[in-house]
């Protein structure tokens, strides 16, 4: 699946998007965040305060307990500040 990062999440990780292949035990968005944190210190830094991270699956907001199965695109970003 494709992971996309925005705003300071993107800056901390150092790239706008990438292909990821989480293992089978990664079931929920929350699991995915924990797994991503293990990928390196830039991820550790981006997701150090995981509960503030907003997540969208296939361009729809989801909660951290949502199951990621079937998602083609998962986006991670800070709380929105538009308008």
């Amino acid at each position, binding site marked *: 699946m494709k992971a996309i990062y*925005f705003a300071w999440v993107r800056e901390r990780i150092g790239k706008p998007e990438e292909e990821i292949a989480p293992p089978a035990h990664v079931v929920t968005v929350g699991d995915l965040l924990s797994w991503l944190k293990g990928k390196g210190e830039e991820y550790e830094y981006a997701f150090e305060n995981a509960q503030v991270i907003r997540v*969208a699956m296939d361009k729809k907001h989801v909660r951290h307990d949502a199951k990621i199965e079937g998602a083609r695109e998962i*986006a991670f*970003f800070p*709380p929105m*500040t*538009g*308008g």
Partner: protein
Amino acid sequence: MLTIRIQREDFDPAKEAEALTHGRTDVGALVTFTGLCRSEAGALCALELEHYPGMAEMELERIAQEARARWPVDGIVVLHRYGKIEPGERIVFVAVSGGHRGEAFHAAEYIMDFLKTSAPFWKREHHVDGSAGGWVEAKDADDTAAERWKRK
């Protein structure tokens, strides 16, 4: 009529509002909101707006449709810019037309409250002194504004 646009360029509020009323004799109320970039007492030299292409349009449309399901309003326009925006420039525009004022006011406020809290846009500041400037932090006040609609 429902118009949603996300664009880099500026827009013309008068033209957008006119499209909701032109040639109509059943529109009694037109409410518009324009959000502009403030200089924060001269400290800010620009805002840079990032968005999630594809999702931002979907979210704005979803919010507009919810407003329309909630109040008997007629036309809705939601425009949001991205890229670099200088103090005094327009950032966002919402227009709602309908038969009566109450509904048009409510729908416009509702759209702005949810646009702020759920449309995927992020602002970063550029300071006059050349410093890189941080990402604008989300405000609790905006969450509170959006929350109030849940009780009604």
